[in-house]
């Protein structure tokens, strides 16, 4: 589903500020990234997050909620 966008006014954006999401430098891309992970069924979500965080040298990482089992 693609939404129609309507214009209210015209304005430019300063290319020196911020980044298009697909051209963020890697240092920023990794800090604002999401991954759709095929979680192995053994370890808990919490453990998986901890491993990924350590291996990718991230300060924080979160997961999309517990499996409501």
């Amino acid at each position, binding site marked *: *589903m693609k*939404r*129609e*966008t*309507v*214009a*209210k*006014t*015209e*304005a*430019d*954006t*300063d290319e020196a*500020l*911020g*980044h*298009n*999401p*697909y051209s*963020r430098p*890697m240092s920023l*891309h*990794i*800090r*604002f*990234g*999401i*991954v*759709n*992970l*095929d*979680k*192995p*069924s053994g370890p808990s*979500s919490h453990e*998986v*997050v901890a*491993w*990924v965080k350590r*291996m*990718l040298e*991230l*300060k*924080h*990482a*979160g*997961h*999309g*909620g*517990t*499996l*409501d*089992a």
Partner: protein
Amino acid sequence: MLPLAFEGATKVVQAFLLSGKEYVCLMQLHEDMAEQRIRDAFAEFAGEIFQRPPLRASVKRTVRRRTIYSLDILEIDGRRVLFKVSCQAGTYVRKICSDLGEVLGCGAHMSELRRTRAGPFDEDRNLCSMYDLLNAYDHWKIGKGEEEFRAIVRPMEEAFEFIPKIYIRDSAVDAICHGADLAVPGVVKLDQGVATNASIVLMSLKAEVVALAKALMSTEQIVEQDHGIAAKTVRVIMPPGTYPPLWKKT
């Protein structure tokens, strides 16, 4: 599958915790049961159900009302029933299985569960293994390029594909990053289908997520009006200072 979000994107995933989930579940019946009786019992569980969270639960164990959007049997093999369920957040599938066992009178338990969708994250989109992820990261680290990593780790903006967006002026961005609400003059363009009180996303003109918000006007009203508050900022995603502050300081 498990959606993961890194650092600045972690707030994005929180926004989807309350969205619907879809699972494929394998249920084990404790006695043989006629197939038609199983199908009849399943039919009772579609729609609104009352559910008390199981003994080992992460929430208070009071009876809650939950909506089951769909419940479809995929396969019945003796005492094993494979089914697909689409449900409201906070529905315990383990409990659906044991309650189905009660209704059938034979008892049943959940033996396997796999989430196939959580909000906008589903199994068909960029699903990767832990191995793929770490490999891609290592390849980038040793100078083999970043394309592999970028194909797996996606910009957080992709999580909002189905949510209506309002695009705002550069000059409005930093005020929003500091928690201000969005006034109509800050709007440059917007999606059709913005409705009063609906969850929306405020975006920069470079299509970066600035904040999650609640619309206070519809698309039509925002286009027609020349003043007033268009949306209330709910959760800021972009770090303040990404764009310069341009509002008047007193």
